[in-house]
């Protein structure tokens, strides 16, 4: 098995090329595909997939790499989405958006202020700053929540974080906060991006940051905590500090993801940020492989492609040319449930397990493909032969065992002794010379 080895520089160049290609592709896709085309779904999947990939990777950092089973992701996304939306609604639109709260308490927009003074640069800065601000606010809240919650373990931690997420959801719908959060009404008309490249780029940068973190000493400490807390502590890892760090960083990116999701949707309300959303993200992590960043990314795109595009027909009546009365709203969820069960039963490792994508692995696969294809028939034959032999051996052993049993039964029935005791020696005997 020839394995391709590349030096660090080549890998770096390849990675940059790959990233550039993805960015260019997403830019062109959004520009070129007309709004009326069916392929427009591709752009939707690209944007939502990138957002879900970011959130899934941030959840994986917590669940897969630090071993903290947290289910608060939707709650943190909610804060992120709201923070972004609140500070980017243009002043003129406030009266309309906050119609039940006399135009709301905040009468300005960061985006508007900055694009007024800096033009196009200000426009993008005005979106970036609220996004990062959303992340920071979520990180702060996560820090405070983490102090009591991270002292809990496994399922207790999951329940506590789930509870906090629910509390946050209720909090943001509280009428008294209406002038800021618009109560249980939707927020809309806030600034959003013009091209998918914006979302994809931010998701890429964030994921790259998390990957660098995982491959640093901090990442090793996280994995050590996941595998054995006592051993990690004995090596000098400050357990609480590192758990808090992972929690805060993960929440920061969940907040960023939430802000991006708000931009993607165009309107935002607290109701969709339910536990179901957390479970969707958890599902992506599991499908991709707990403990694999690339797995989460692949899982996110597969999931969004299925739920937004490929399996849509299952709800609409016709799918892959098949029309059935079974295909009615909700059937897609049934199919999803079945897929999840199959994955958990037969591929609990997920798509990537704990492995990561590497250029060397990919190139080696391509390089070995012809040889593997050529060798496959012989290999399969040898495998089948070995299987056959093993089967025959097992069969013979089983037959022998059956015979032995029958013999024993016959002997026992006739009162005969089943075995002769071994000779007992009063000195040491050697059966076979030791090594």
């Amino acid at each position, binding site marked *: 098995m020839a394995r391709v080895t590349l030096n660090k520089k080549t890998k770096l160049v390849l990675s940059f090329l790959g990233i550039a290609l993805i960015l260019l592709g997403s830019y062109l896709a959004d520009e070129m595909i007309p709004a009326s085309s069916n392929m427009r779904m591709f752009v939707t999947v690209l944007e939502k997939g990138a957002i879900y990939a970011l959130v899934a990777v941030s959840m994986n950092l917590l669940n897969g790499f630090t071993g903290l089973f947290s289910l608060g992701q939707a709650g943190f996304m909610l804060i992120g989405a709201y923070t972004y939306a609140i500070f980017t609604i243009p002043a003129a639109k406030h009266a309309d958006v906050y119609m039940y709260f006399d135009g709301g308490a905040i009468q300005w927009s960061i985006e508007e202020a900055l694009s007024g003074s800096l033009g196009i640069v200000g426009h993008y800065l005005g979106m970036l700053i609220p996004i990062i601000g959303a992340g920071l606010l979520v990180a702060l809240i996560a820090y405070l929540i983490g102090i009591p919650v991270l002292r809990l373990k496994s399922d207790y931690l999951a329940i506590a974080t789930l509870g906090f997420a629910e509390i946050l959801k209720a909090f943001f719908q509280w009428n008294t906060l209406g002038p800021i959060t618009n109560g249980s009404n939707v927020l809309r008309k806030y600034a959003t991006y013009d091209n998918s490249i914006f979302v994809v780029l931010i998701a890429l940068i964030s994921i790259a940051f998390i990957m660098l973190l995982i491959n640093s000493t901090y990442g090793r400490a996280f994995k050590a905590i996941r595998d054995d807390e006592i051993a990690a502590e004995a090596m000098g890892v400050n357990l609480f500090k590192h758990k808090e760090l992972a929690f805060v960083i993960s929440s920061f990116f969940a907040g960023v993801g939430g802000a991006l999701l708000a931009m993607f949707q165009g309107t935002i309300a607290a109701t969709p940020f339910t536990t179901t959303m957390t479970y969707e993200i958890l599902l992506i992590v599991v499908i991709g492989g707990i403990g694999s960043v690339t797995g989460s990314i692949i899982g996110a795109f597969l999931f969004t492609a299925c739920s937004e595009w490929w399996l849509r027909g299952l709800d609409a009546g016709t799918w892959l040319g098949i029309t059935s009365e079974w295909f009615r709203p909700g059937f897609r969820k049934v199919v999803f449930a079945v897929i999840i069960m199959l994955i958990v039963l037969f591929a609990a490792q997920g798509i990537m397990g704990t492995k990561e994508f590497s250029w060397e692995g990919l190139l080696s696969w391509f390089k070995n493909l012809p040889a593997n294809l050529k060798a496959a028939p012989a290999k399969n034959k040898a495998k089948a032969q070995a299987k056959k032999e093993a089967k025959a051996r097992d069969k013979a052993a089983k037959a022998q065992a059956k015979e032995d049993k029958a013999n*024993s039964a016959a002997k026992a029935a006739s009162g005969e002794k089943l075995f002769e005791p071994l000779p*007992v020696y*009063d*000195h040491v005997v*050697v059966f076979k010379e*030791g090594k």
Partner: protein
Amino acid sequence: MLAIRDLHVYYGGIHALQGIDIDVPDGQIISLIGANGAGKSTTLKSIMGLVGKRQGQVFWDNLDITSMKTKDIVKEGIILCPEGRRIFPDLTVDENIMCGAYLRKDKEEIEKDREWVYSLFPRLKERTWQLGATLSGGEQQMLAVARALMSKPKLLMLDEPSLGLAPLIIKDIFAIIQKIASEGVNIMLIEQNAKAALEISDYAYVMETGVITMAGPGKALMNDPRVQQAYLGE
């Protein structure tokens, strides 16, 4: 009397036991010594039906127990006290002990045996309400042996009872093992601590990578230069 004849066990493609012959006669302590990975634990597990046997037979008195289920083997009076103690950490000492009598129905006899077990391990009697996890290593080992004895075994198989214990505690445990043997329980002992095991054994087998390489009375093996060099570090 337990008799193992030509026992073969495979783990996937690995031939872990390659034809083992062992006798455990009544009223004796038999020990099986050998290095890590020699197949000692596998031998005990396959006797109990916890790993599949490929070939060979295991007899218990005049009964073929080769293909019997573990629960039936326990009913026949053979019990394994597994390596690493495996006590139930969140059950109390008393609950742990009563779990050993799971397959028994004779309430009065069980009560009697409970008294007997507590008389063997007075330290456990002081701690009946303590949770298993809060015991020290030595006490946990005592609890594991006590639990095994509650099945009223005729053959008690002990897998590394000295694992991770201080020399003084090991001495205690081995004294209790001898006491149990003197009360009519046959004992099969697996040990890394060859010296302690051979000292109390009537007969012993030396195992090496899946085969029995030596056998003899415990005292004779202890004085054998080859055993001393390989297992006693002298």
